[in-house]
């Protein structure tokens, strides 16, 4: 699953020289439009208990052979235990944003899954008025940007204060990502927040279009200009080359390019989308590399986000990032998002596959 700057990763699997179209051909469709999901219907997921001899993998063959007697005796018990029977899941569909490298952007799947989950929670009498407070995502394979993505939303629980949903993002029956999302009734409680790190104001920094002026890197220019989120890097962007300071932290100001409706879950979806642009850049920066490095092979593996306080994605948000570790071809990025007044809005974690080939 691709993440990071959706344009700069062209330099990964796809050769820079291949793409020669004019910018207009790659205009990114508006994020608000693709969050307006269409409800497709419902699916039924049934659990049953199979005969233990049915095509087990080699590793468990022996276990299953020895467990056959137990399993047979336990079939009825197991059917009850695993909740055999039918469950109903609602299904939504949304279009994909066109991307220069023809693969769906991870942030898009995350944002659409959040909207899909939120619609089923809001529709539930118990869930109405429960804002999103966390998501955990596993990215499996990237999708095709020409096709719609389907979101199957299964209820995991609707408790006294929390509602939990599991969302499967699918294309043509292939699982692209699994997003679990939790919603909680507003509640008072202990309150503290780590202060916002010092950073120059967004207004004092060049926007990426200005920063890229004169740089022979048309792809990043095109995508960043056409993208729904405006970005301003405190330590300089990584679209056109590496930076001399090899530190595992950075700050990026971001905001939606256009005003947004007041619906809090739309803002949460935008922030989740935007987090996927830059959360791994603290790893790249630490190792003196950049999105434009032709050796870079990169993919998002997972994503976790905790929404601490409501915030607006159409006002400046500082995304402060740090990488505690990279090893074994993977790097972990941690981030915090602050409103310009210093309010801590969200915390983020993402592990990415990051390799330099050749």
């Amino acid at each position, binding site marked *: 699953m691709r993440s990071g700057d959706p344009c700069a990763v062209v330099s990964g699997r796809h050769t820079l020289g291949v793409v020669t179209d004019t910018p207009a051909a790659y205009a990114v469709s508006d994020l608000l439009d693709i969050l307006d999901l269409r409800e497709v219907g419902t699916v039924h997921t049934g659990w049953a208990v199979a005969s233990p001899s049915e095509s087990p993998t080699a590793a468990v063959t022996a276990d299953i052979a020895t467990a056959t007697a137990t399993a047979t005796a336990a079939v009825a018990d197991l059917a009850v235990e695993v909740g055999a029977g039918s469950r109903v899941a609602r299904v939504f569909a949304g279009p994909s944003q066109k991307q220069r490298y023809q693969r769906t952007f991870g942030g898009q799947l995350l944002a659409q899954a959040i909207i899909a989950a939120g619609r089923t929670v809001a529709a539930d009498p118990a869930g109405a008025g429960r804002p999103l407070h*966390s998501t955990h995502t596993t990215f499996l394979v990237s999708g095709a940007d020409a096709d719609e993505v389907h979101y199957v939303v299964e209820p995991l629980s609707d408790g006294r204060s929390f509602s939990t949903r599991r969302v499967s993002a699918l294309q043509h029956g292939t699982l692209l990502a699994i997003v*679990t999302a939790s919603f909680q009734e507003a509640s008072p409680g202990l309150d503290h927040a*780590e202060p916002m790190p010092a950073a120059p104001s967004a207004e004092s920094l060049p926007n990426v279009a200005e920063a890229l002026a004169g740089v022979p890197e048309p792809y990043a220019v095109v995508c960043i200009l056409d993208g729904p989120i405006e970005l301003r890097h405190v330590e300089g962007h990584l679209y056109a080359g590496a930076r001399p300071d090899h530190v595992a932290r950075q700050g990026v100001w971001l905001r939606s390019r256009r005003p947004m409706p007041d619906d809090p879950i739309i803002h949460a979806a935008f922030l989740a989308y935007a987090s996927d642009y830059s959360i791994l850049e603290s790893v790249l920066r630490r190792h003196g590399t950049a999105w434009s490095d032709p050796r870079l092979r990169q993919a998002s593996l997972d994503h976790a986000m905790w929404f601490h306080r409501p915030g607006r994605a159409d006002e400046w948000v500082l995304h402060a990032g740090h990488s505690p570790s990279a090893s074994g071809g993977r790097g972990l990025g941690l981030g915090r998002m602050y409103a310009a007044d210093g309010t801590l809005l969200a915390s983020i974690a993402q592990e990415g596959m990051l390799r330099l080939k050749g």
Partner: protein
Amino acid sequence: MAAAGVAAGALANVLANVLANVLAKMGSGMGAILSVPRDSLTLMRLPDSAADSVADLLDVLDLTCLGEARIVVEGAPGDEETDLGESTPIVFVGRSQKQAHGRVFGGQVLAQSLVAAARTVEPVDGVARPIHSLHAYFVRGGDDNHPIRFVVERVRDGASFSTRRVQAVQYGQTILSMGCSFQEPADGMDHQDPMPPAPDPDDIPTLAEALGEHLDPSAAQFFAARRPIELRHVEGNIYVKPGRQRAARQSVWLKARAELPDDPVIHAAVLAYASDYPMLEPVLRRHGVAWQDPRLRPASLDHAMWFHRAPKADDWVLYTMSSPSASGGRGLGVGRMFSADGALMASVAQEGMLRLKEG
């Protein structure tokens, strides 16, 4: 068991008042709330020694494979997109450690789910794929008297990664939902946060010594010796009294109290188990709250863990934690686990529900 007899004797009141309350709250799963009967410890089956407590944990992690279940997903009529057909998850079963409150300890079901998933990941061309991450939601509280079924879906086996989804199930309902990922060893960029300075674990009081300040020393000794994980708080524990400083960070040395088998899955599982104990303490410390505070209503909501380097859980591990935020009845803890020689083995994040109820 001998433990029950001891607890039923002169120590019962002290233990029930203090330690059962602490035990009941620490790392309790979603919904594990929390009126501990005075005599609950007399019903507990506690191991007789440190070695027994580790053997008991290993037994809990030694799951039995029951066979395959079948999940059928019928697509919406006329929509081949969502017609997923059938999948055949593998089902394991395991038992629980007894808890004072009757609820399964979150770290236990997390560790068992990790083991269940790992047992379905086979070496590819002779190359094993160790776990590198897990993400779990504690959906409901578990019953410690009832076996837990672990339904493992083999979501994907790719060229270098394998992905699994585990649902821990009791009475037909999911108590924990976890995704985890395994990767064949690879080279790449390498860096890590340095280990912060910390006093030597041998210079920090043991749990028994620390609890002895508040309790009959024999009661403290009895209690401390029966846990599989030894914890030594660098800034002092907050079981009975709040910390001296209202800081949203702390460090704990921890390790299994006996040697573990040479199996990386077990070491990863024991680190996951141990990580759930003190993860929310930076939030409590920041707000001057002790576990024993009768107003405290805690529950773990989720848990994420990234294994950066080979896990080893039976040598000292420095677990450094901080809380970036608490709000809306929830608090977030993030942590890092270093081996004693400074290697960053794992990063951890957990959100908990933390309410202070008056009256």
